[in-house]
């Protein structure tokens, strides 16, 4: 057992405790960025000037009328930017654009004494433009050859040979929708400037360091002039990894120019129509199976709909390519990826970060092909699981593949699946207009940032003279319980009760150069760093305690606020020891650091070991579908998920359940619709409100929802033996989609292959049922080698650059 993963006796990690802020949440006392406005004097409010064109050139911007509106203080335009006019890191995201790239793109911002004044001022700004041709659908971009960024390929073996030796070859396409984050708290920033020109920004951001970087380069200031703080977020899900920076920069620019605090909060309509979302994808594929249903070869081209700028599309695509295998061994693979450039919001990180999209392609293939192979879909999946000694297509050994099989068996037995399958057969035979089905699907998800450099974390731990402990770390809290776990880690390492530890809000002047709280890595990275800082302090204290207790240093134990010497009755309290240490002039603070060991990734060849480990999970879902309408209910869900040795079981359970329901939302309910007709509203997001973009509500919660953590799941080399949990459970929701497919198929003859749209809304399920009833559902696949060859890279396609996840990262050119 590694030092990092080993737990002391009586650890605080592993205890079932509620979220550290739960009492503040339920009483309305927890503060979010925009709650600070009323506590700040003389705040100005920012409101965008937007152009309702999918694509247009701005020919004139006249702000004079706006300045006559009572309460309008200033209009911010590109001329006001002292540094770089860019909200991103690739210099393709002008903060104040002269070319409108998507419907509702903001070209200027109005500052007002009230939000109402700023809104009226915005309406008074005159913008002239020349419309330009636009691309809205991903298929339009493919036809036009409109791509951006790299076009990488993950490959192993020889796909043509693999397909040639396959007994069954199928070819198909699949276009599926993205997803709106719909964090309940919209994007928000509040910027102030102090007497010395120091900018202080409170921002709802998953990546304070990058917010700091972008503000710095917009203002043309070195990073030490800008401090970013995030108290907490009202949800992030990846939507606050890149998107907050520009809004923070607008607020900071306004504060710099007016000397007054500036607040920028998007309302829901603005947030929905201005911020990036999960990428929708288009996939073309050929797949080969052996006569007994083993995957032999996969040839696919995935096109991510990137929207108007590159944003995080390259690493999202990389993760999609690295997850198309999901849990399955495929000998010969060639997966090519590209990013469409369209006139839509700049699509971005979203829980799973391309992984779900890659995995969905293969799960869809398995769901469509199983009936044609004559193999039960559950059996087809299980048969193809990775086994010990096999590698992923990008060359990483798959460690612990037995956990897939263990979790699968456990779900089969705890979910009583075989009896329920029999019940369902009987139910379906007795009901003409209602059908049920159970589907079971696995998840294997790689943990770490693909880009090795991001896999580092920092912390600052302070012990005060009275023994109380204050911890700072570089991660942000968005509801995932990171802060709770960090407090548990600190209490465990220092051997003190949880009540001794307090956590300070995330700030860039406490912990510099932090990575985004993303890629499920918050606990691994920051937990490693917090533990490292606490280890340093404890080691110093051990020497002090050994002297006092008269035992060798290695016989000193820190437990629950007491310091004990083995083999002696002597002990002292933590507070006594701290007091002694202070008078001995022992340093009682430490900055901690952690870097994930053993990672290697060559972005150019798309080969290496980009992940520290894989998280595994299995879900079985039963649905009931109404044949009259296509409406459905989720009757029961059984999940076994691998979180290593859980640091905080209640928190982990919440991540699994919440991720599952969010994934089910993406796959079944949440329906992003963009107006792709020619006309004045071309490019407009039609579902731009909570009334038209429907999130899962109580009616989507599974009626019976059983979640178990996988036993004996200790993870070597991760903090206290735990595993990341943020993203992987989202993909357990494939079981809902596959159950809907199987239930729709049950309306038709045995062996009906169903093409199910994604999201599988009631309407989509209804059309799938109609296909099944007419037994005309087989036209969506073609069979036979060679099939349609997926589009291959053109001559101008370039591979991923080594630092592809961040263009000219961290080089503010205004300095």
């Amino acid at each position, binding site marked *: 057992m590694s030092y990092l993963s080993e737990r002391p006796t009586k650890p605080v990690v592993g205890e079932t405790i509620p979220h550290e802020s739960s009492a503040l949440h*339920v009483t309305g006392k927890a503060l979010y960025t925009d709650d600070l406005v*009323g506590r700040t004097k003389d705040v100005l409010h920012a409101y965008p000037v937007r152009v309702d064109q999918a694509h247009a050139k701005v020919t004139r911007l006249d702000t004079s009328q706006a300045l006559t509106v009572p309460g309008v203080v200033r209009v911010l335009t590109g001329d006001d930017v002292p540094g770089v006019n860019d909200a991103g890191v690739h210099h393709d995201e002008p903060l104040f654009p002269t070319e409108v790239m998507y419907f509702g793109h903001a070209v200027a911002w109005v500052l007002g004494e009230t939000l109402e004044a700023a809104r009226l001022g915005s309406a008074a700004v005159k913008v002239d433009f020349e419309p330009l041709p636009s691309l809205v659908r991903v298929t339009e971009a493919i036809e036009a050859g409109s791509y951006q960024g790299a076009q990488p390929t993950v490959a192993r073996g020889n796909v043509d040979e693999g397909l040639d030796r396959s007994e069954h070859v199928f070819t198909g396409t699949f276009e599926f929708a993205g997803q709106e984050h719909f964090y309940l708290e919209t994007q928000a920033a509040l910027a102030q400037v102090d007497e010395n020109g120091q900018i202080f920004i409170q921002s709802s951001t998953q990546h304070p360091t990058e917010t700091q970087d972008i503000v710095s380069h917009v203002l043309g200031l070195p990073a030490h002039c800008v401090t970013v703080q995030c108290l*907490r977020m009202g949800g992030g899900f990846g939507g606050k990894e890149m998107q907050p920076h520009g809004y923070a920069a607008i607020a900071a620019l306004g504060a710099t120019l007016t000397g007054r605090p500036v607040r920028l909060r998007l309302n829901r309509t603005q947030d929905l129509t201005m911020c990036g979302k999960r990428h929708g994808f288009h996939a073309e594929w050929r797949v080969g199976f052996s006569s007994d249903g083993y995957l032999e070869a996969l040839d696919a081209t995935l096109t991510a709909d990137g929207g108007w700028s590159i944003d995080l599309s390259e690493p999202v695509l990389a993760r999609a390519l690295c997850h198309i295998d999901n849990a399955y061994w495929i000998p010969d693979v060639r997966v090519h990826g590209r990013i469409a450039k369209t006139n839509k919001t700049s699509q971005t990180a979203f829980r799973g970060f391309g992984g779900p999209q890659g995995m969905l392609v293969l799960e869809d293939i398995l769901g469509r092909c199983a009936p044609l192979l004559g193999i039960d879909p559950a059996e087809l999946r299980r048969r193809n699981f990775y086994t010990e000694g096999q590698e992923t297509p990008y060359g990483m050994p798959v460690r612990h593949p037995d956990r897939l099989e263990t979790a699968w068996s456990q779900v089969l037995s705890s979910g009583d699946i075989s009896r329920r399958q029999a019940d369902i057969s009987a139910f379906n035979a007795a009901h003409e207009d209602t059908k049920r089905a159970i589907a079971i699907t696995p998840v294997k998800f790689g943990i770490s940032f693909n880009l090795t450099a991001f896999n580092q974390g920092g912390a600052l731990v302070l012990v005060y003279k009275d023994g109380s402990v204050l911890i700072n770390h570089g991660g942000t809290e968005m509801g*995932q*319980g990171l802060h709770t776990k960090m407090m548990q880690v600190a209490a465990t390492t220092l051997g003190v009760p949880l009540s001794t530890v307090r956590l300070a809000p995330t700030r860039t002047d406490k912990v510099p150069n932090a990575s985004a709280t993303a890629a499920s890595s918050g606990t691994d990275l920051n937990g490693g760093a917090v533990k490292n800082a606490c280890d340093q302090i404890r080691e110093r204290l051990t020497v002090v305690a050994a002297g006092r207790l008269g035992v060798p240093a290695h016989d000193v134990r820190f437990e629950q606020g007491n310091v004990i010497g083995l083999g002696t009755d002597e002990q002292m309290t933590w507070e006594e020891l701290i007091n002694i240490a202070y008078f001995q002039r022992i340093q009682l603070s430490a900055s901690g650091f952690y870097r994930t060991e053993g990672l290697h990734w060559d972005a150019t060849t798309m080969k290496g070991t980009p992940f520290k480990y894989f998280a595994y999970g299995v879900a079985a879902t039963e649905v009931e579908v109404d044949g009259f*309408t296509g409406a459905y209910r989720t009757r029961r869900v059984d999940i076994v998920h691998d979180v290593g040795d859980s640091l905080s079981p209640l928190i982990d359970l919440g991540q699994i359940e919440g991720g599952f329901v969010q994934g089910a939302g993406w796959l079944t309910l949440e329906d992003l619709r963009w107006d792709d007709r020619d006309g004045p509203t071309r490019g407009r997001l*039609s579902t731009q409100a909570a009334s038209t973009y*429907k999130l899962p509500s*109580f009616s989507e919660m599974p009626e019976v*929802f059983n979640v178990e953590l996988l036993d004996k799941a200790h993870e070597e080399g991760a903090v206290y033996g735990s595993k990341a949990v943020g993203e992987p459970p989202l993909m357990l929701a494939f079981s809902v989609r596959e159950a809907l497919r199987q239930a729709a198929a049950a309306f038709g003859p045995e062996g009906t292959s169903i093409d199910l749209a994604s999201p599988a809304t009631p309407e989509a399920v209804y059309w799938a049922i109609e296909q099944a009833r007419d037994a005309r559902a087989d036209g969506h696949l073609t069979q036979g080698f060679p099939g349609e060859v997926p589009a291959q890279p053109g001559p101008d396609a370039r591979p991923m650059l080594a630092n592809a996840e961040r263009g000219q990262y961290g080089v503010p050119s205004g300095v």
Partner: protein
Amino acid sequence: MTEAATALDVTVNGQAREFTDAAHTNLLDWLRSEGLTGAKEGCAEGECGACSVLVARPDSDGDTTRWTALNACLVPAAAFAGQEIITAEGLGSPEALHPVQQEMAVRGGSQCGYCTPGFVCSMAAEYYRPGRTACGPEAVDEPEHGANGFDLHSLSGNLCRCTGYRPIRDAAYALGDVPDDDPLGARCNGPAPAASPTSYEADGRRFVRPATLTEALTVLRDNPDAVPVAGCTDWGVDVNIKSARADLVIGLDRLPELRGIEETETYVELGAALTLSEIEQRLDGRIPLLDQLFPQFASRLIRNGATIGGNLGTGSPIGDTPPALLALDAELVLVGLDGTRVVPLADYFTGYRQTVRAPGELIQSVRIPLPLAGITAFHKIAKRRFDDISSVAIGYAFDVADGVVRKARIGLGGVAATPLRATAVEAALEGKPWTADTVRAAAALLQEEGTPMDDHRASSKYRRAMLGTSLRKIYAESTAKEGVA
């Protein structure tokens, strides 16, 4: 009219506060400007419930109080003069959590916490609901009903993006009975604050709550551009999303003349300013078709605000009451300063958001003729089961005697610029045997009704298909009930 006030008193968490902001300021923005930032804006249109607060409203007997959860983002703060409001901050503190807060906190009911104060308020309203009692020791939790009497639909207007809802459900189902010494529980035993006649003005814009119907009609006559509001569930969206700023808003929701329920030999009459929740409570199952409608109409939060008159007054083609009321052959009583007139609902809608209601007229009540038909149903086609807007909504009322359809009424929403009756289909059914063949032929006709459109909710093809399958479904259900194959 008397001089307009420039300040109004509102009691929040037991403390008197003064409202002096713009007349269009919604309750949420005002509470937040007062430093009560627990309630949040999540959507600004009454869909997410993050802004939910409790308001002391008269219970149906008039002598007691019911804590009623409302979306604070949808209602003008000026409408709350003299009223009592409780926010999450007023329910408990971190040191002394309210039972609802306690259960939510310890069971993992909050993750990011942003939606949580709203959930807490909606849950508290159900906690205090008169008649919510444990169903005995043998009671068990059902999917949408707790053994403690908790109705999960009371939370259908609150969205959480983090938890997946299971721990919130468990928190709700773990709540006990309200102890006798609970101050908010005890508050329910006394009457709720009466509605204060209000005339408020700020920056030249006014909110008026008349004391009588005659006064309301007079103000409306004198100010033809005034916006009459009853539940404000549309007003709030117009103000928040479309930036509508009316010079004068007239609050009708507490006018006693519009809040009666009367049953005669020949009809049931529902006052236009009754909320959907109030009608549901007071009818108590009297009209089965409406009982099918209520849970599908919208969330409890919306039904606590939205009035039946408001739903008809806006003239929306996708309002959910018209298809049901058309099937029930309902009539509207319209009232003006010159008196009242009765209009069949089938003649009320004249075009997209156009009706026969004349300027200066208000809807006074809705009359539902008796006796009621034997077979009734309300089918709502939407993406989400709880709290969604209809793609198509269909109300049915059939009298079938001796296997023959004697009378058929079918109301449709979402298939044309107005709600409409499917008169051709009704004619095709009446006098025919209630058989699968009749239904199949009628369903084919029903599919051709209206001119459904393609939009983000559904395709026109699906809407048409749903018209047909809906009739087949009600037939399947009615025959299943009778045990006929």
